[in-house]
């Protein structure tokens, strides 16, 4: 695929002023619909108690305070599993799951994109078909399978299934199709490089946008994971679960709840801001032709 255009679309056609105005109007309306709840959440998290309960309620905060955030941290201190444990769980599961996913999915994607072998296309089509159903369909039988392998209530139940995401493999394989030229793979083979070496030294550095995308998708999913049906022990539960749990303790904690939401959304949003251009580049080859 050609490099993405970054400069402004050169307008050769006449763009009617009415059309421009209509589009801008629609965009502003939709934009307000999207952004207002976010702004409200942030505004809530800075409201002092009297503003949270005043009537009529105000949308924007009048005298902002950090007390909701400090309340949240105080609440963290009194939880009976040390809060650092929840943070460790989420960080550990997110990093281990993402690293495994990156390696397992890219390796398979390389073989499917660059080696012609019997069954390869069937495998890829099967994985692609699985994009068509939501994983909740298989939650119950998945539970039975994990039970068989004694994975229930261990980190493995969260990490191992994260290694093979259909979307990860799909995006990676599509991106390799268009961005790793055959001649380069072939000349690496002529120089005596093994398939593994070609994958690691030649192909992987060429598909950096795709692995960044895969990392973001995998990380977001694991980071936002709340309570899991596969985990019973309090010591293994996620940061997201714990923070929601303490913040949801009754109406008195409405402010702390808003603060918790803001903290939780900061991480995926900042990660997206940093990697946006790479993700968009990867999506350029996400298309499905048949």
């Amino acid at each position, binding site marked *: 695929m050609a490099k993405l255009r970054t400069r402004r679309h050169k307008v050769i056609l006449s763009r009617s002023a009415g059309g421009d105005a209509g589009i801008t109007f629609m965009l502003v309306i939709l934009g307000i619909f999207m952004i207002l709840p976010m702004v409200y959440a942030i505004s809530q998290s800075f409201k002092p108690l009297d503003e949270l309960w005043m009537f009529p309620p105000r949308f924007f905060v009048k005298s902002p305070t950090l007390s909701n955030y400090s309340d949240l941290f105080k609440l963290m201190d009194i939880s009976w599993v040390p809060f650092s444990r929840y943070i460790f769980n989420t960080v550990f599961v997110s990093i281990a799951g993402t690293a495994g996913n990156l390696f397992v999915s890219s390796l398979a994607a390389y073989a499917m994109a660059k080696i012609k072998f019997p069954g390869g296309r069937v495998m890829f089509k099967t994985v692609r078909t699985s994009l068509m159903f939501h994983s*909740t369909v298989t939650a119950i039988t998945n539970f039975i399978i994990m039970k068989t392998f004694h994975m229930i209530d261990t980190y493995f139940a969260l990490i191992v299934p994260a290694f093979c995401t259909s979307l990860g493999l799909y995006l990676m394989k599509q991106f390799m199709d268009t961005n790793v030229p055959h001649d380069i*793979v072939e000349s690496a083979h002529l120089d005596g490089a093994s398939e593994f070496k070609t994958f690691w030294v030649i192909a992987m550095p060429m598909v950096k946008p795709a692995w960044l995308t895969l990392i973001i998708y995998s990380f977001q999913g694991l980071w936002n994971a709340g309570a899991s049906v596969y985990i019973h022990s309090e010591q293994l539960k996620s940061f997201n679960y714990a923070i929601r749990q303490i913040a949801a303790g009754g109406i008195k904690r409405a402010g702390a709840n808003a603060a918790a939401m803001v903290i939780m959304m900061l991480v995926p949003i900042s990660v997206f801001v940093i990697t946006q251009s790479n993700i968009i580049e*990867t999506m350029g080859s996400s298309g499905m032709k048949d």
Partner: protein
Amino acid sequence: MSKNTAVETKKAVSRKDMTWAQWTWKEMKRNKVAYVMVAPFMILFTLFTVAPVVLSIFFSFTDFNLLQTPNWVGIENYIRLFLDDDIFMIAIQNTFIFAVIVGPVSYLMSLLVAWFINELSPKIRAIVTLVFYAPSISGEIYTIWGTLFSSDSQGWVNGKLLELGLITSEIKFFQNANWVMPLCIVVALWTSLGTSFLSFIAGLQGINQSYYEAGAVDGIKNRWQELWYITLPSMKPQLMFGAIMSITSSFGFGGVVTNLCGFPSVDYAAHTIMHHLDDYGGARYEVGYSSAIAVILFGIMIGSNILVKKVLSKVGQ
């Protein structure tokens, strides 16, 4: 999909004088390394995606309850679902209402917004992209809608309506059977500009500029004609991928309903097949019965995806 992309690395075995099975076996041996490379993924994929689907289909014909050995009961679970389970009928109806509205509307919203922002300068485009994409990656931030529409006078919407004198007592939005479905649909839409949205942005960016120039020469007059005759046909692969992502997620908004309305929702007004599945599988351990529910949901998802793919393949033909 990628007919011509795979590379013949070593000298291919001549196909002459060989049966298909012999040739395949030779090719398999020659490409041993490929199987080693796909093995970790395919083993895990089989274990956590293929096997659960196959097992669900099998269990749906049994009375398995996690404790006793399953007995074969034929299609009894399905008969019970369709003839004796009134709540399942509500669930099917709600699931369809949800998917039929959220799927297409979020798809069109993603496409339109991506198209609207395509001609903006890169910096502004990046900011607008973030504004529209953020709700879908921010976890459970959508529960803020529960605060906005809270059932007491401190809820912003109720407070405003009371202040303006439009209502005399608070509306219990998420506890009122008339309100839960529309509100949950709005919230689901709010979080729905996800992967398909990004794919459309990339698809629009990737269209070759010369097509537009050629189009102008050929007499395309305005941006609407440009959209219909050049833009949409050029990004068909993205349209296809986006459709699959939108449809699949439009069936997966059970969590939104549970977090906002509780479980079960009032009078089952927003009860979807997914909730029914949770109820029987997660809470009552009726694996056989819940597997039948899962199989039906699976069939609906795959069926609607295939249908939409068929329709979309006609775009620009």
